């Protein structure tokens, strides 16, 4: 047994005292939004794990998960690399032939209970809660089943009950949150026969990990996996071989998940505020342009009409003038004709010739 229940309650008492004494300084060392300085965690020591699957068995029992296909005593299942699934919150895998390791190594997988969980940040109904005790828990009563949490989790932990038609749930380790609130240890921690799992306040665990590294020089790599990965996790791992060799990704970086989407979310109010203004502006400009174009067109039409009218008037006037002239000419012609006729009539009369007429000079 690693830690007895009484000792756990002792842990809790110490946690309270620690809060009074130096909580502030420690809190400052946590990532700013990590939130809960006294949150709990578990330190998994790869060098101590013997691959007995007792933790898997205990997890199955305390969480009342369906019975496994093969019994937990059957270590043959270690032949295959497994992952968490809808009936299994935690899994131990065996890694063989690792340079620098004497025999096979074992690693336990479960939810790491991130300080800033990707799953919780991704869920669009807030089905996940980061509890003050460190546990990341899931509320099936609101879950829609979009499975975005599974996309988001960098440790590939949440699983889904694909075989249920009407009530599928996301399944993942709860850190035994219901047991923690009762003052009980997580099932796996309680069951581990080789003290590979150490339960306590996360900040104490970080110190314990460092102490072990100092105590056994050369036994561990100088890296506490989970101290900073993805912004830090409640579950921590120390190992004597590179983490990549036991199936843990070393390229996750230290940026907490919410940080990754902050920029994109921040754009939303900007777009929502700026776009309508901008688009209305563009609309107004185009409308104005259209209106001006229309007005210009109308003005041009009006001018053309005016010009045409003027032209027509001029033509009419000219026509009138011409008609007047023609009339005058016609009258003159008529008058002249009449005069001539009159003169001719007079010349034929005995009254004698009219002077200036050719007949007058003619000798009789």
């Amino acid at each position, binding site marked *: 047994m690693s830690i007895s229940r009484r000792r756990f309650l002792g842990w809790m008492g110490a946690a309270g005292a620690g809060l009074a004494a130096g909580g502030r300084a420690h809190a400052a060392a946590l990532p700013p939004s990590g939130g809960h300085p006294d949150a709990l965690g578990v330190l998994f020591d790869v060098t101590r794990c013997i691959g007995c699957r007792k933790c898997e068995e205990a997890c199955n029992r305390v969480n009342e998960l369906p019975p496994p296909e093969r019994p937990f005593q059957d270590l043959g299942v270690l032949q295959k690399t497994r992952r968490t699934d809808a009936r299994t919150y935690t899994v131990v895998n065996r890694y063989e032939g690792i340079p620098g390791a004497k025999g096979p190594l074992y690693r336990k997988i479960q939810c790491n209970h991130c300080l800033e969980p990707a799953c919780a940040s991704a869920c669009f*109904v*807030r089905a996940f809660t980061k509890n003050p005790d460190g546990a990341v828990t899931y509320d099936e009563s*609101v879950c829609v089943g979009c*499975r975005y949490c599974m996309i*988001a989790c960098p440790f*590939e932990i949440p699983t889904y009950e694909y075989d249920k038609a009407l009530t599928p749930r996301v399944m993942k380790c709860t850190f035994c949150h219901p047991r923690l609130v009762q003052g009980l240890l997580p099932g796996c921690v309680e069951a581990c026969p080789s003290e590979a799992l150490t339960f306590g306040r996360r900040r104490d665990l970080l110190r314990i990990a460092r102490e072990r590294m100092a105590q056994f020089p050369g036994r561990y790599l100088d890296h506490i996996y989970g101290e900073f990965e993805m912004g830090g996790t409640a579950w921590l791992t120390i190992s004597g071989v590179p983490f990549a060799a036991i199936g843990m990704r070393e390229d*996750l970086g230290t940026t907490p998940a919410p940080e990754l989407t902050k920029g994109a*979310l921040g754009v939303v109010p900007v777009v929502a505020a700026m776009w309508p203004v901008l*688009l209305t502006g563009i609309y107004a400009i185009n409308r104005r342009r*259209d209106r001006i174009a229309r007005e210009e067109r109308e003005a041009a039409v009006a001018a053309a009409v005016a010009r045409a009218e003027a032209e027509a008037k001029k033509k009419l006037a000219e026509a009138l003038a011409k008609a007047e002239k023609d009339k005058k000419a016609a009258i003159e012609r008529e008058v002249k004709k009449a005069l001539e006729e009159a003169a001719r009539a007079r010349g034929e009369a005995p009254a004698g010739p009219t002077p200036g007429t050719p007949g007058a000079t003619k000798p009789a």
Partner: protein
Amino acid sequence: MQFPKVTLERPRWTPFNIVAAIVVVVGLGITVLRFTKGLAATTNLSDYNPWGIWIGFDLLVGVALAAGGYVTSAACYLFGLKRFHTAVRPAILTGFLGYALVVLALHYDVGRPWRLPYPFIVQQGTTSLLFEVAACVALYLTVLFIEWTPAALEWLGLKRARNLVVRLTLVLTIFGVVLSTLHQSSLGALFLIAPSKLHPLWYSPYLALFFFVSSIVAGLSMVIFEGALAHRYFHHKMDEAHRREADGVALGFAKAASWVLGGYFVLKVVGVAQADAWHHLASGYGAWFLVEVIGFVLLPCFFFAIGAREKNLRIVRFTAAWAVLGIVINRFNVGLIAFNYHLPSSERYFPHWMEIGISLFIVTIGVLAYKFIVSHMPILYAHPDYEPH
């Protein structure tokens, strides 16, 4: 008020009708299986691969290809390109149908579809980009529905209601553009949270921008593409204005698509440079990335430009289909192919035939609905009793 009579001709057994009937029958069968036996019986989804083609195709591709609605109405009503006016109604219709089908597809994909309203009415997960996508898609579907109603109301002869809606055109258009900008980009931003799972050539802090810009390409290309199809199959339904303007719409959109594709190409290159992912180009994924970016972005960009300059409608229409395919490939890459690139091939996803069956079923429903609406409502022609708006 007189309701129009819908004359349902007896279905003729044309090859299209036969295939459609088979797809629908099979689709209904799979639907029953999906909701009685669950996702496990009908999909190849797994704990490593929680999203399959119902997200990769139906959601990501569906939303991108339905972008024609906002692109066209913005061009016509906001940017004052009145000569595209006759393209607005068909584009709004396909947009509306597209989004309606996306939402329908989501009912198959999520575990408990009757809870889809929960993010709005029970608890709001505002830190989630999926929340933004969901909210915008829901609102935009409503907007598209309202934008589409004038056609239905004209068909039904409800003059006053129709005139009321038409007066909202400007507000709806602006609202539609805002919502589209937000959710088109957020669909890309969905993957921002998983840098360790998406291949570095596709993962980029600019994912949101990539998705938004490429959605414009998708919208423009789809309008050209659908226009070509409509001309082929619904020519008799078109009025003079549609036939006259259609070629201008295709050429104008081709020119625009060429410019946007050019910009998109530059952005993609900047993305690789920003991530300093050049060395990945030498890998298998690198080759595939080059196929996408050169073969389905750069080349369509050139061909759109050539088609628009030469006023060659054949080139333009061909390139539109090509660019649409490019968008499909891009969404598949981000959602499925380059996603989980780190997993051994035994853990990778390949769709179950029933997943493909449902996707086909949903597309078929869309085509049938389009056929019905275009045959009965004033989409490709202006209703003689109404002023165009």
